[in-house]
Protein backbone atom coordinates (compact mmCIF):
# COMPACT_ATOMS: atom_id res chain seq x y z
CA UNK A 1 0.00 0.00 0.00
CA UNK A 2 2.67 2.42 1.06
CA UNK A 3 4.73 1.70 -2.00
CA UNK A 4 1.82 2.36 -4.33
CA UNK A 5 0.96 5.59 -2.53
CA UNK A 6 4.64 6.52 -2.64
CA UNK A 7 4.68 6.13 -6.40
CA UNK A 8 1.53 8.21 -6.69
CA UNK A 9 2.75 11.24 -4.76
CA UNK A 10 6.09 11.23 -6.49
CA UNK A 11 4.39 11.16 -9.88
CA UNK A 12 2.07 13.96 -8.75
CA UNK A 13 5.08 16.09 -7.74
CA UNK A 14 6.83 15.55 -11.05
CA UNK A 15 3.73 16.48 -13.05
CA UNK A 16 3.22 19.47 -10.74
CA UNK A 17 6.77 20.70 -11.43
CA UNK A 18 6.14 20.37 -15.17
CA UNK A 19 2.82 22.22 -14.84
CA UNK A 20 4.51 25.15 -13.12
CA UNK A 21 7.15 25.42 -15.81
CA UNK A 22 4.54 25.25 -18.58
CA UNK A 23 2.43 27.75 -16.68
CA UNK A 24 5.11 30.45 -16.98
CA UNK A 25 5.87 29.45 -20.55
CA UNK A 26 2.23 29.91 -21.58
CA UNK A 27 2.06 33.23 -19.82
CA UNK A 28 4.50 34.62 -22.38
CA UNK A 29 1.66 35.57 -24.75
CA UNK A 30 -1.79 37.00 -23.99
CA UNK A 31 -3.29 34.36 -26.28
CA UNK A 32 -2.16 31.41 -24.16
CA UNK A 33 -1.94 33.18 -20.81
CA UNK A 34 -5.15 31.84 -19.31
CA UNK A 35 -4.05 28.31 -20.16
CA UNK A 36 -0.96 29.17 -18.12
CA UNK A 37 -3.06 30.00 -15.07
CA UNK A 38 -4.98 26.75 -15.45
CA UNK A 39 -1.74 24.82 -15.69
CA UNK A 40 -0.48 26.53 -12.53
CA UNK A 41 -3.71 25.66 -10.72
CA UNK A 42 -3.46 22.03 -11.77
CA UNK A 43 0.14 21.94 -10.61
CA UNK A 44 -0.83 23.33 -7.22
CA UNK A 45 -3.74 20.91 -6.88
CA UNK A 46 -1.48 17.95 -7.71
CA UNK A 47 1.11 19.16 -5.23
CA UNK A 48 -1.47 19.48 -2.43
CA UNK A 49 -3.24 16.19 -3.15
CA UNK A 50 0.07 14.40 -3.61
CA UNK A 51 1.26 15.69 -0.25
CA UNK A 52 -1.95 14.62 1.49
CA UNK A 53 -1.39 11.09 0.12
CA UNK A 54 2.06 10.78 1.68
CA UNK A 55 2.15 8.29 4.51
CA UNK A 56 3.87 10.79 6.84
CA UNK A 57 0.65 12.79 6.86
CA UNK A 58 -1.64 11.11 9.35
CA UNK A 59 -4.00 13.77 10.68
CA UNK A 60 -6.24 15.66 8.29
CA UNK A 61 -8.97 17.50 10.19
CA UNK A 62 -6.89 20.54 11.18
CA UNK A 63 -5.36 20.74 7.73
CA UNK A 64 -8.81 20.80 6.13
CA UNK A 65 -10.01 23.47 8.55
CA UNK A 66 -6.92 25.54 7.72
CA UNK A 67 -7.65 25.16 4.00
CA UNK A 68 -11.20 26.38 4.49
CA UNK A 69 -10.16 29.39 6.55
CA UNK A 70 -7.49 30.27 3.97
CA UNK A 71 -9.90 29.97 1.05
CA UNK A 72 -12.54 31.99 2.93
CA UNK A 73 -10.06 34.85 3.34
CA UNK A 74 -8.30 34.56 -0.01
CA UNK A 75 -11.30 34.42 -2.36
CA UNK A 76 -13.01 37.64 -1.21
CA UNK A 77 -9.62 39.38 -1.33
CA UNK A 78 -9.23 38.46 -4.99
CA UNK A 79 -12.78 39.34 -5.99
CA UNK A 80 -13.38 42.49 -3.97
CA UNK A 81 -10.12 44.35 -4.55
CA UNK A 82 -10.47 46.91 -7.35
CA UNK A 83 -7.95 46.57 -10.19
CA UNK A 84 -6.12 49.70 -9.08
CA UNK A 85 -5.31 47.85 -5.84
CA UNK A 86 -3.54 44.94 -7.52
CA UNK A 87 -0.13 46.09 -6.24
CA UNK A 88 -1.41 46.11 -2.65
CA UNK A 89 -3.03 42.73 -3.05
CA UNK A 90 0.14 41.27 -4.49
CA UNK A 91 2.17 42.67 -1.60
CA UNK A 92 -0.30 41.22 0.90
CA UNK A 93 -0.30 37.89 -0.87
CA UNK A 94 3.53 37.87 -0.74
CA UNK A 95 3.33 38.51 2.96
CA UNK A 96 1.14 35.44 3.53
CA UNK A 97 3.27 33.19 1.33
CA UNK A 98 6.52 34.28 2.97
CA UNK A 99 4.97 33.97 6.42
CA UNK A 100 4.01 30.38 5.63
CA UNK A 101 7.54 29.57 4.50
CA UNK A 102 9.00 31.15 7.63
CA UNK A 103 6.60 29.28 9.93
CA UNK A 104 7.43 25.97 8.29
CA UNK A 105 11.12 26.68 8.85
CA UNK A 106 10.47 27.54 12.49
CA UNK A 107 8.29 24.48 13.03
CA UNK A 108 10.91 22.26 11.43
CA UNK A 109 13.60 23.73 13.68
CA UNK A 110 11.59 23.03 16.83
CA UNK A 111 10.67 19.57 15.61
CA UNK A 112 14.36 18.72 15.58
CA UNK A 113 15.27 20.43 18.83
CA UNK A 114 12.31 19.12 20.82
CA UNK A 115 13.10 15.59 19.70
CA UNK A 116 16.67 16.23 20.81
CA UNK A 117 18.07 15.34 17.37
CA UNK A 118 20.99 17.49 16.24
CA UNK A 119 20.26 19.27 12.97
CA UNK A 120 22.66 18.35 10.15
CA UNK A 121 24.59 21.50 9.10
CA UNK A 122 23.39 21.38 5.49
CA UNK A 123 19.74 21.33 6.65
CA UNK A 124 20.41 24.11 9.15
CA UNK A 125 21.90 26.31 6.41
CA UNK A 126 18.68 25.85 4.44
CA UNK A 127 16.54 26.53 7.52
CA UNK A 128 18.48 29.70 8.31
CA UNK A 129 18.04 31.04 4.77
CA UNK A 130 14.39 30.05 4.74
CA UNK A 131 13.51 31.71 8.02
CA UNK A 132 15.61 34.82 7.38
CA UNK A 133 14.08 35.46 3.95
CA UNK A 134 10.63 34.31 5.05
CA UNK A 135 10.28 36.62 8.05
CA UNK A 136 12.06 39.50 6.32
CA UNK A 137 9.76 39.23 3.29
CA UNK A 138 6.75 38.93 5.58
CA UNK A 139 7.26 42.22 7.39
CA UNK A 140 8.66 43.96 4.32
CA UNK A 141 5.57 42.98 2.31
CA UNK A 142 3.26 44.16 5.07
CA UNK A 143 5.12 47.49 5.05
CA UNK A 144 4.92 47.66 1.26
CA UNK A 145 1.20 46.96 1.52
CA UNK A 146 0.88 49.75 4.07
CA UNK A 147 2.72 52.20 1.82
CA UNK A 148 0.68 51.26 -1.25
CA UNK A 149 -2.57 51.49 0.68
CA UNK A 150 -1.25 54.75 2.15
CA UNK A 151 -1.67 53.59 5.74
CA UNK A 152 2.05 54.17 6.16
CA UNK A 153 3.44 57.47 4.77
CA UNK A 154 4.57 56.89 1.18
CA UNK A 155 7.44 59.37 1.45
CA UNK A 156 10.76 57.77 2.31
CA UNK A 157 11.28 57.80 6.08
CA UNK A 158 14.91 58.44 6.84
CA UNK A 159 17.01 59.34 9.83
CA UNK A 160 20.68 59.99 10.40
CA UNK A 161 22.79 56.82 10.39
CA UNK A 162 19.94 54.72 9.01
CA UNK A 163 22.12 52.63 6.74
CA UNK A 164 24.58 52.14 9.59
CA UNK A 165 21.84 50.86 11.94
CA UNK A 166 20.51 48.52 9.24
CA UNK A 167 23.98 47.23 8.45
CA UNK A 168 24.73 46.62 12.13
CA UNK A 169 21.47 44.72 12.65
CA UNK A 170 22.06 42.66 9.55
CA UNK A 171 25.63 41.90 10.62
CA UNK A 172 24.33 40.80 14.03
CA UNK A 173 21.77 38.46 12.42
CA UNK A 174 24.37 37.04 10.03
CA UNK A 175 26.75 36.68 12.98
CA UNK A 176 24.27 34.35 14.67
CA UNK A 177 24.18 32.07 11.62
CA UNK A 178 27.47 30.14 12.04
CA UNK A 179 26.57 29.59 15.68
CA UNK A 180 23.22 28.07 14.76
CA UNK A 181 24.68 26.02 11.93
CA UNK A 182 27.29 24.64 14.35
CA UNK A 183 24.31 23.29 16.29
CA UNK A 184 24.03 25.50 19.35
CA UNK A 185 21.36 24.50 21.83
CA UNK A 186 21.27 27.92 23.51
CA UNK A 187 17.57 28.73 23.67
CA UNK A 188 17.55 32.44 22.82
CA UNK A 189 19.58 32.31 19.62
CA UNK A 190 16.89 31.15 17.19
CA UNK A 191 14.10 33.43 18.51
CA UNK A 192 16.51 36.38 18.42
CA UNK A 193 17.34 35.54 14.84
CA UNK A 194 13.62 35.52 14.00
CA UNK A 195 13.15 38.85 15.74
CA UNK A 196 16.02 40.42 13.84
CA UNK A 197 14.69 39.12 10.52
CA UNK A 198 11.26 40.59 11.24
CA UNK A 199 12.74 43.92 12.27
CA UNK A 200 15.04 44.03 9.28
CA UNK A 201 12.10 43.64 6.91
CA UNK A 202 10.46 46.75 8.39
CA UNK A 203 13.64 48.81 8.32
CA UNK A 204 14.31 47.83 4.72
CA UNK A 205 11.06 49.36 3.46
CA UNK A 206 10.96 52.52 5.62
CA UNK A 207 13.34 54.54 3.42
CA UNK A 208 11.74 53.45 0.14
CA UNK A 209 9.31 55.80 -1.57
CA UNK A 210 6.08 54.94 -3.36
CA UNK A 211 7.60 55.45 -6.81
CA UNK A 212 10.15 52.71 -6.20
CA UNK A 213 7.51 50.16 -5.28
CA UNK A 214 7.64 48.33 -8.66
CA UNK A 215 11.23 47.32 -7.98
CA UNK A 216 10.59 46.47 -4.36
CA UNK A 217 7.56 44.29 -5.02
CA UNK A 218 9.50 42.41 -7.69
CA UNK A 219 12.38 41.94 -5.28
CA UNK A 220 10.08 40.65 -2.53
CA UNK A 221 8.65 38.20 -5.06
CA UNK A 222 12.17 36.97 -5.63
CA UNK A 223 12.86 36.59 -1.89
CA UNK A 224 9.65 34.62 -1.37
CA UNK A 225 10.74 32.26 -4.15
CA UNK A 226 14.20 31.89 -2.66
CA UNK A 227 12.67 31.08 0.74
CA UNK A 228 10.64 28.32 -0.94
CA UNK A 229 13.70 26.89 -2.65
CA UNK A 230 15.54 26.91 0.69
CA UNK A 231 12.60 25.05 2.22
CA UNK A 232 13.00 22.51 -0.57
CA UNK A 233 16.57 21.91 0.58
CA UNK A 234 15.54 21.65 4.23
CA UNK A 235 12.83 19.08 3.45
CA UNK A 236 14.68 17.34 0.61
CA UNK A 237 11.77 18.23 -1.68
CA UNK A 238 12.69 18.99 -5.31
CA UNK A 239 9.26 20.28 -6.29
CA UNK A 240 9.79 23.13 -3.84
CA UNK A 241 13.25 23.76 -5.25
CA UNK A 242 11.97 23.98 -8.83
CA UNK A 243 8.96 26.18 -8.03
CA UNK A 244 11.01 28.37 -5.69
CA UNK A 245 13.87 28.79 -8.16
CA UNK A 246 11.53 29.71 -11.03
CA UNK A 247 9.88 32.31 -8.79
CA UNK A 248 13.09 33.70 -7.49
CA UNK A 249 14.40 34.19 -11.02
CA UNK A 250 11.12 35.76 -12.11
CA UNK A 251 11.21 38.34 -9.35
CA UNK A 252 14.88 38.94 -9.98
CA UNK A 253 14.45 39.60 -13.72
CA UNK A 254 11.53 41.94 -13.12
CA UNK A 255 13.44 43.97 -10.57
CA UNK A 256 16.43 44.20 -12.93
CA UNK A 257 14.09 45.44 -15.68
CA UNK A 258 12.62 48.02 -13.28
CA UNK A 259 16.04 49.22 -12.17
CA UNK A 260 17.19 49.58 -15.78
CA UNK A 261 14.04 51.52 -16.60
CA UNK A 262 15.02 54.00 -13.90
CA UNK A 263 18.74 53.91 -14.67
CA UNK A 264 19.46 53.06 -11.05
CA UNK A 265 21.21 50.25 -9.26
CA UNK A 266 19.69 47.87 -6.74
CA UNK A 267 21.70 49.50 -3.99
CA UNK A 268 20.41 52.91 -4.95
CA UNK A 269 16.78 51.79 -4.89
CA UNK A 270 17.15 50.03 -1.54
CA UNK A 271 19.34 52.50 0.29
CA UNK A 272 19.17 55.69 -1.74
CA UNK A 273 15.99 57.17 -0.20
CA UNK A 274 14.95 58.66 -3.51
CA UNK A 275 12.56 61.56 -3.38
CA UNK A 276 14.18 63.47 -0.52
CA UNK A 277 16.00 65.67 -2.96
CA UNK A 278 15.35 68.84 -4.86
CA UNK A 279 12.82 70.70 -2.71
CA UNK A 280 14.66 73.95 -3.28
CA UNK A 281 15.01 73.54 -7.03
CA UNK A 282 11.31 72.84 -7.43
CA UNK A 283 10.44 76.02 -5.59
CA UNK A 284 12.31 78.38 -7.92
CA UNK A 285 11.49 76.53 -11.15
CA UNK A 286 7.77 76.95 -10.61
CA UNK A 287 8.05 80.69 -11.22
CA UNK A 288 8.44 80.11 -14.95
CA UNK A 289 5.45 80.77 -17.23
CA UNK A 290 3.30 77.98 -18.60
CA UNK A 291 0.16 77.74 -20.73
CA UNK A 292 -3.05 76.20 -19.53
CA UNK A 293 -6.17 75.30 -21.46
CA UNK A 294 -9.79 74.28 -20.93
CA UNK A 295 -11.53 71.05 -21.86
CA UNK A 296 -13.06 72.84 -24.83
CA UNK A 297 -9.65 73.88 -26.21
CA UNK A 298 -8.31 70.39 -25.64
CA UNK A 299 -11.27 68.84 -27.45
CA UNK A 300 -10.74 71.09 -30.46
CA UNK A 301 -7.06 70.25 -30.71
CA UNK A 302 -7.75 66.54 -30.36
CA UNK A 303 -10.50 66.69 -32.98
CA UNK A 304 -8.13 68.12 -35.57
CA UNK A 305 -5.36 65.62 -34.84
CA UNK A 306 -4.58 62.57 -36.93
CA UNK A 307 -2.47 60.66 -34.46
CA UNK A 308 -2.73 60.77 -30.66
CA UNK A 309 -0.54 58.94 -28.17
CA UNK A 310 -1.79 58.65 -24.61
CA UNK A 311 0.79 58.32 -21.83
CA UNK A 312 -0.80 57.05 -18.62
CA UNK A 313 0.86 57.08 -15.21
CA UNK A 314 0.05 56.38 -11.60
CA UNK A 315 -2.17 59.48 -11.49
CA UNK A 316 -4.54 57.76 -13.91
CA UNK A 317 -4.83 54.84 -11.50
CA UNK A 318 -5.45 57.12 -8.53
CA UNK A 319 -8.18 59.02 -10.36
CA UNK A 320 -9.65 55.76 -11.79
CA UNK A 321 -9.64 57.53 -15.16
CA UNK A 322 -9.16 54.43 -17.33
CA UNK A 323 -12.86 54.01 -18.19
CA UNK A 324 -13.27 57.65 -19.24
CA UNK A 325 -10.08 57.24 -21.21
CA UNK A 326 -11.67 54.39 -23.12
CA UNK A 327 -14.66 56.60 -23.95
CA UNK A 328 -12.25 59.22 -25.25
CA UNK A 329 -10.48 56.56 -27.32
CA UNK A 330 -13.81 55.46 -28.78
CA UNK A 331 -14.92 58.98 -29.70
CA UNK A 332 -11.59 59.79 -31.33
CA UNK A 333 -11.36 56.46 -33.14
CA UNK A 334 -14.84 57.01 -34.55
CA UNK A 335 -13.59 60.24 -36.08
CA UNK A 336 -10.81 58.31 -37.78
CA UNK A 337 -8.10 59.48 -35.39
CA UNK A 338 -5.37 56.98 -34.59
CA UNK A 339 -5.11 56.54 -30.79
CA UNK A 340 -2.25 54.57 -29.27
CA UNK A 341 -0.95 54.13 -25.72
CA UNK A 342 2.67 54.40 -24.60
CA UNK A 343 3.56 52.47 -21.46
CA UNK A 344 6.75 53.20 -19.55
CA UNK A 345 8.10 50.15 -17.69
CA UNK A 346 7.88 51.83 -14.28
CA UNK A 347 4.56 53.63 -14.79
CA UNK A 348 2.35 52.78 -11.83
CA UNK A 349 3.13 50.89 -8.69
CA UNK A 350 4.09 47.50 -10.06
CA UNK A 351 5.50 46.13 -13.31
CA UNK A 352 2.79 46.14 -16.00
CA UNK A 353 0.30 47.98 -13.77
CA UNK A 354 -0.97 50.31 -16.52
CA UNK A 355 -1.59 47.45 -18.98
CA UNK A 356 -3.91 45.77 -16.51
CA UNK A 357 -5.89 48.95 -15.85
CA UNK A 358 -6.29 49.73 -19.55
CA UNK A 359 -7.28 46.13 -20.22
CA UNK A 360 -9.85 46.47 -17.45
CA UNK A 361 -11.34 49.38 -19.38
CA UNK A 362 -11.56 47.16 -22.50
CA UNK A 363 -8.82 48.88 -24.41
CA UNK A 364 -7.45 46.22 -26.77
CA UNK A 365 -3.90 45.26 -25.91
CA UNK A 366 -2.56 45.71 -29.44
CA UNK A 367 -2.86 49.45 -28.81
CA UNK A 368 -0.56 49.32 -25.78
CA UNK A 369 3.08 49.83 -26.71
CA UNK A 370 6.37 49.52 -24.89
CA UNK A 371 8.67 52.49 -24.60
CA UNK A 372 11.28 51.41 -27.14
CA UNK A 373 8.66 50.49 -29.73
CA UNK A 374 6.71 53.74 -29.62
CA UNK A 375 9.39 56.35 -28.93
CA UNK A 376 10.25 56.82 -32.65
CA UNK A 377 6.55 57.60 -33.33
CA UNK A 378 6.33 60.70 -31.17
CA UNK A 379 7.95 62.88 -33.86
CA UNK A 380 5.01 62.32 -36.18
CA UNK A 381 2.37 62.51 -33.49
CA UNK A 382 0.00 65.45 -33.36
CA UNK A 383 -0.97 65.21 -29.71
CA UNK A 384 0.72 63.45 -26.83
CA UNK A 385 -1.76 63.29 -23.96
CA UNK A 386 -0.04 62.75 -20.61
CA UNK A 387 -2.36 61.56 -17.85
CA UNK A 388 -0.94 61.29 -14.37
CA UNK A 389 2.60 60.54 -15.52
CA UNK A 390 5.45 62.81 -14.51
CA UNK A 391 9.04 61.65 -14.12
CA UNK A 392 8.78 59.16 -17.01
CA UNK A 393 8.20 62.05 -19.46
CA UNK A 394 10.67 64.55 -18.01
CA UNK A 395 13.16 65.61 -20.72
CA UNK A 396 15.63 66.58 -17.98
CA UNK A 397 16.48 62.89 -17.79
CA UNK A 398 18.16 63.27 -21.18
CA UNK A 399 20.37 66.29 -20.65
CA UNK A 400 20.36 67.70 -17.09
CA UNK A 401 23.25 66.06 -15.31
CA UNK A 402 22.15 67.57 -11.98
CA UNK A 403 18.71 66.04 -12.15
CA UNK A 404 18.22 63.02 -9.88
CA UNK A 405 16.59 61.19 -12.77
CA UNK A 406 19.42 61.95 -15.23
CA UNK A 407 20.02 58.95 -17.50
CA UNK A 408 16.65 57.37 -16.93
CA UNK A 409 15.09 56.27 -20.23
CA UNK A 410 11.94 58.32 -20.86
CA UNK A 411 9.04 58.52 -23.28
CA UNK A 412 9.86 61.23 -25.83
CA UNK A 413 6.55 63.08 -25.54
CA UNK A 414 8.30 66.43 -25.97
CA UNK A 415 8.84 65.53 -29.64
CA UNK A 416 5.11 65.51 -30.38
CA UNK A 417 3.62 68.58 -32.10
CA UNK A 418 1.42 69.35 -29.13
CA UNK A 419 1.73 68.02 -25.60
CA UNK A 420 -1.22 68.06 -23.25
CA UNK A 421 -0.72 67.25 -19.59
CA UNK A 422 -3.63 66.53 -17.28
CA UNK A 423 -2.55 67.29 -13.76
CA UNK A 424 -4.10 68.48 -10.52
CA UNK A 425 -1.83 71.48 -10.11
CA UNK A 426 1.71 72.67 -10.82
CA UNK A 427 2.98 70.88 -7.70
CA UNK A 428 5.89 68.66 -8.61
CA UNK A 429 5.18 64.94 -8.57
CA UNK A 430 6.11 62.25 -6.14
CA UNK A 431 9.87 62.61 -6.41
CA UNK A 432 9.64 66.35 -5.93
CA UNK A 433 11.40 66.94 -9.23
CA UNK A 434 10.14 69.75 -11.41
CA UNK A 435 9.34 68.83 -14.98
CA UNK A 436 10.55 71.16 -17.75
CA UNK A 437 8.06 69.55 -20.12
CA UNK A 438 5.36 71.68 -18.48
CA UNK A 439 7.04 74.94 -19.49
CA UNK A 440 7.56 74.19 -23.16
CA UNK A 441 5.81 76.38 -25.75
CA UNK A 442 3.84 73.53 -27.23
CA UNK A 443 2.72 72.16 -23.89
CA UNK A 444 -0.78 72.83 -22.64
CA UNK A 445 -1.52 72.18 -18.99
CA UNK A 446 -5.01 70.86 -18.28
CA UNK A 447 -5.67 71.33 -14.59
CA UNK A 448 -8.13 69.08 -12.83
CA UNK A 449 -8.98 65.58 -11.77
CA UNK A 450 -7.97 63.20 -14.55
CA UNK A 451 -11.28 61.34 -14.58
CA UNK A 452 -13.58 64.36 -14.70
CA UNK A 453 -11.33 66.25 -17.13
CA UNK A 454 -11.26 63.41 -19.64
CA UNK A 455 -15.03 63.14 -19.14
CA UNK A 456 -15.42 66.83 -20.06
CA UNK A 457 -13.30 66.43 -23.18
CA UNK A 458 -15.48 63.49 -24.24
CA UNK A 459 -18.59 65.61 -23.69
CA UNK A 460 -17.18 68.46 -25.78
CA UNK A 461 -16.24 66.08 -28.59
CA UNK A 462 -19.65 64.41 -28.51
CA UNK A 463 -21.39 67.81 -28.64
CA UNK A 464 -19.28 68.92 -31.58
CA UNK A 465 -19.96 65.75 -33.53
Amino acid at each position, binding site marked *: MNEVAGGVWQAAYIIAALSFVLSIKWLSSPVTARRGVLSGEIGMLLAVVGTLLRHEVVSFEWILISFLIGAAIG*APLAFLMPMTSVPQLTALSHAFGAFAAALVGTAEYY*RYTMAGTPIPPAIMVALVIETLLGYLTFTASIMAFGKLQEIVPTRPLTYRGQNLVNAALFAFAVGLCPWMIAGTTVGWVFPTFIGLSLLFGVLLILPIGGGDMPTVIALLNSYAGAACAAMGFALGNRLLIIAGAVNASSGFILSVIMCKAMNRSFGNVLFGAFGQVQEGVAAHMSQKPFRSATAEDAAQILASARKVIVVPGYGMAVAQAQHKLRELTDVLTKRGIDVQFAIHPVAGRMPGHMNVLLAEADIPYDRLHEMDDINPDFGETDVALVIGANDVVNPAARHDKNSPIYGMPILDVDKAHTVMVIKRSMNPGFAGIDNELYYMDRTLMLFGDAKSFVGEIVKELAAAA
Partner: protein
Amino acid sequence: MSNELEISLYVLALAVPLGLELVRRVSPLLHTPLMSLTNAISAISVVGAILIAGAGDSPTLSKVLGCIAVTASTINIVAGFLITDRMLKMFKKKEPAK
Protein backbone atom coordinates in the same frame (compact mmCIF):
# COMPACT_ATOMS: atom_id res chain seq x y z
CA MET B 1 28.20 15.71 0.44
CA SER B 2 25.22 13.40 0.65
CA ASN B 3 23.68 12.02 -2.50
CA GLU B 4 20.34 13.68 -1.71
CA LEU B 5 21.92 17.11 -1.40
CA GLU B 6 23.88 16.62 -4.59
CA ILE B 7 20.74 15.82 -6.58
CA SER B 8 18.97 18.83 -5.06
CA LEU B 9 21.84 21.09 -6.10
CA TYR B 10 21.65 19.73 -9.64
CA VAL B 11 17.93 20.49 -9.69
CA LEU B 12 18.61 24.03 -8.50
CA ALA B 13 21.37 24.49 -11.06
CA LEU B 14 18.94 23.59 -13.85
CA ALA B 15 15.87 25.34 -12.47
CA VAL B 16 17.42 28.80 -12.08
CA PRO B 17 18.52 29.26 -15.72
CA LEU B 18 15.25 27.73 -16.88
CA GLY B 19 13.31 30.23 -14.78
CA LEU B 20 15.39 33.16 -16.04
CA GLU B 21 14.88 32.07 -19.64
CA LEU B 22 11.13 31.55 -19.26
CA VAL B 23 10.53 34.88 -17.58
CA ARG B 24 12.63 36.81 -20.06
CA ARG B 25 10.19 35.73 -22.78
CA VAL B 26 7.12 37.10 -21.02
CA SER B 27 5.84 40.25 -22.72
CA PRO B 28 5.98 43.41 -20.54
CA LEU B 29 2.27 43.67 -21.28
CA LEU B 30 1.73 40.78 -18.88
CA HIS B 31 4.21 41.64 -16.14
CA THR B 32 1.54 42.19 -13.51
CA PRO B 33 -0.19 38.84 -14.18
CA LEU B 34 3.27 37.24 -14.26
CA MET B 35 3.95 38.59 -10.84
CA SER B 36 0.68 37.47 -9.34
CA LEU B 37 1.00 34.04 -10.98
CA THR B 38 4.52 33.48 -9.66
CA ASN B 39 3.26 34.79 -6.35
CA ALA B 40 0.58 32.08 -6.35
CA ILE B 41 3.14 29.45 -7.31
CA SER B 42 5.44 30.53 -4.50
CA ALA B 43 2.68 29.38 -2.17
CA ILE B 44 4.00 25.90 -2.95
CA SER B 45 5.32 26.21 0.59
CA VAL B 46 1.90 24.74 1.40
CA VAL B 47 3.56 21.36 0.78
CA GLY B 48 5.99 21.90 3.65
CA ALA B 49 3.16 23.27 5.79
CA ILE B 50 1.00 20.16 5.27
CA LEU B 51 3.93 17.87 6.02
CA ILE B 52 4.57 19.64 9.32
CA ALA B 53 0.92 20.03 10.32
CA GLY B 54 -0.07 16.47 9.50
CA ALA B 55 2.98 14.54 10.67
CA GLY B 56 2.38 12.12 13.51
CA ASP B 57 5.68 12.89 15.22
CA SER B 58 5.46 16.72 15.23
CA PRO B 59 5.35 18.36 18.67
CA THR B 60 2.23 20.44 19.31
CA LEU B 61 4.08 23.71 18.74
CA SER B 62 5.16 22.57 15.28
CA LYS B 63 1.66 21.37 14.45
CA VAL B 64 0.12 24.71 15.41
CA LEU B 65 2.72 26.60 13.38
CA GLY B 66 2.09 24.18 10.51
CA CYS B 67 -1.66 24.82 10.56
CA ILE B 68 -1.17 28.59 10.57
CA ALA B 69 1.22 28.11 7.66
CA VAL B 70 -1.37 26.04 5.76
CA THR B 71 -3.91 28.84 6.27
CA ALA B 72 -1.48 31.56 5.18
CA SER B 73 -0.36 29.71 2.07
CA THR B 74 -3.94 28.84 1.14
CA ILE B 75 -4.78 32.55 1.23
CA ASN B 76 -1.79 33.11 -1.03
CA ILE B 77 -2.82 30.33 -3.44
CA VAL B 78 -6.47 31.29 -3.70
CA ALA B 79 -5.94 35.04 -3.94
CA GLY B 80 -2.98 34.65 -6.32
CA PHE B 81 -4.65 32.39 -8.88
CA LEU B 82 -8.04 34.11 -8.77
CA ILE B 83 -6.66 37.60 -9.26
CA THR B 84 -4.37 36.42 -12.08
CA ASP B 85 -7.28 34.89 -13.92
CA ARG B 86 -9.44 37.93 -13.26
CA MET B 87 -6.77 40.13 -14.83
CA LEU B 88 -6.10 37.91 -17.82
CA LYS B 89 -9.79 37.70 -18.64
CA MET B 90 -9.67 41.43 -19.35
CA PHE B 91 -6.93 41.32 -21.96
CA LYS B 92 -8.61 41.40 -25.36
CA LYS B 93 -7.05 41.88 -28.73
CA LYS B 94 -10.00 43.02 -30.83
CA GLU B 95 -12.48 45.74 -30.08
CA PRO B 96 -15.37 44.09 -28.26
CA ALA B 97 -18.49 43.82 -30.42
CA LYS B 98 -21.14 46.38 -29.65
